């Protein structure tokens, strides 16, 4: 399994929050949010048992969500992870996954039961489809959390 480089807290490193800074102390008032935001990242992007959705595919999905959401820092983080792992093979499976990722990221209200059949047809089972959706949903969360934290950080230096 590919291990992430040691990052104590990904969000703080992406925003550039110094340990002990006012913003870091603010986040420390919500220790379970800090812990389980990082924990979600780790189990989704670097699972001990990835099942049928490979670590490279997970990184590719995260890159796409961050890019569609136009979050430069997160897109950079996930591109590095993808480069480390090597991209998954090009082809129908990756294309199908990425089409679904675009839908869930940009227009979640338009998904339908048929999307599930399309994903099954390229080899994803129920667990893989839940994991795929969790990756998209998690990065969508991360984009908003990182954006709001960055605004608070910028406000402090003004």
């Amino acid at each position, binding site marked *: 399994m590919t291990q992430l480089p040691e990052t104590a807290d990904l969000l703080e490193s992406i925003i550039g929050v110094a340990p002990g800074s006012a913003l870091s102390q603010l986040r420390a008032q919500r220790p*379970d949010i800090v812990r389980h935001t990082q924990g979600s990242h780790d189990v989704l992007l670097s699972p001990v048992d990835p099942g049928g959705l490979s670590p490279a595919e997970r990184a590719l999905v995260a890159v796409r969500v961050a890019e569609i959401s136009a979050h430069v820092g997160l897109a950079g983080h996930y591109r590095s992870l993808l480069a480390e792992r090597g991209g998954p093979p090009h082809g129908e499976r990756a294309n199908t996954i990425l089409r679904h990722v675009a839908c869930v990221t940009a227009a979640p209200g338009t998904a339908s039961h048929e999307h599930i059949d399309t994903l099954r047809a390229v080899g994803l089972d129920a667990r893989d489809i839940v994991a795929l959706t*969790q990756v998209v949903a998690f990065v969508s969360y991360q984009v908003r959390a990182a954006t709001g934290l960055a605004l608070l950080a910028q406000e402090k230096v003004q």
Partner: protein
Amino acid sequence: MNAKRFTLEAVEWAPWLPPVTLQTATPKQRAALDNSPQANSAYFRTLANDVDSLAERLPLFHAVMYVPRGLKRAERELATVVVSIINGCVYCSSVHARRFVELTKQPEIIRALYKQGVDTKLEPRLRAIVDYAAKLTREPATMTVADLAPLRAVGLDDLEIHDLTNAVAMFANANRLMQTLGEPVMPEGAA
């Protein structure tokens, strides 16, 4: 927006994938489900197909929505309703609109949001909260420090803004899971 049947009534949810059953759940799945608000809910049992992500997400959700101090619970609920309206999540908006009403006894605020949309007239503090939630949902990449000014003007402190941000972010997450792994089932007789 009128095509979506946003409601204050209870809505059910039907999965598009086979949920884990309590009878066949592994010990790990059973432990995660027992840690959820409702072990037998079809939604949590569907998420239990990938148990490690569910086991992280449950305490994250709890911490974002229910941990005391900071932004009032009702205001967190309101923010999640706004996010759910924008993302079209009928199920999520129903659940959290009802929580908002339980806490505030102000169903008229929800009805106005449903009927007139998120730009409906609101008192200044709620207006600032709703505007921030809407922009962070729709176009996070365009936000600047200036978007915090209306929140500061109505008195939100750092922890409240932090909590508001996380509530909005959590429903970017919840709305995507809920709308792409299954669908809402409307109560009988609902328009």
